[in-house]
């Protein structure tokens, strides 16, 4: 089962109920919820208008999932209908492998120029 990290953010009031709803919906489709992180409640960088309302503050939440890829479309649909969810995305779990960065290799410009002259 591939791992996703599912991110969505929503309004401040009724946070617990909305979270519960979404997590239950996810479990229904057969996904394993690993972790739920609250990235805090802050003012959005720009005003977002969604569901006939202009929002300025929101609570950001991040859910780590493991599940079949067929969940994605159904969940996006389901959350699109939820008024309390402002924005939703599924992101593949970032596999961080930055220990092989070898540094800037100096590009030999002479070779490229001389080769083109032919």
């Amino acid at each position, binding site marked *: 089962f591939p791992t996703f990290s599912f*991110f969505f*953010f929503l309004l401040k009031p009724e946070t617990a109920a909305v979270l519960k709803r979404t997590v239950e919906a996810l479990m229904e489709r057969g996904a394993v919820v690993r972790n739920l992180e609250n*990235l805090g409640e802050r003012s*959005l*960088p*720009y005003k*977002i208008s969604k569901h006939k309302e202009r929002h300025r503050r*929101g609570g*950001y939440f991040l859910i780590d999932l493991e599940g079949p890829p067929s969940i994605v479309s159904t969940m996006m649909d389901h959350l699109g209908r939820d008024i309390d969810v*402002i*924005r939703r*995305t599924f*992101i593949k779990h*970032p596999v*961080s492998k*930055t*220990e092989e*960065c*070898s*540094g*800037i*290799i*100096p590009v030999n410009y002479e070779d490229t120029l001389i080769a083109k002259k032919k």
Partner: protein
Amino acid sequence: QPIQMENPYKEPPKKCVLCGINVDYKNVQLLSQFVSPHTGCIYGRHITGLCNKKQKEVTKAIKRAHVLGFMPVMFKNPSFLTDPKICNVKY
């Protein structure tokens, strides 16, 4: 007779600023350092001085942060204006 060998005085390859640092769309402060404070446009490779991979990663992360509502698009977040200068921009 001169012996053929590798250059013993070779310097280690130059590393860019983000070499070894994991770039994430969530740490807005790091990403904002590569964005113009006046317009919010992403600086090019000749200004940031990053290697290919890292520049691509940073651009992708910035675009993602824009869409997901982490980072403002048209300007730089005012709380990050006093960050140390990484790119060689001339204002």
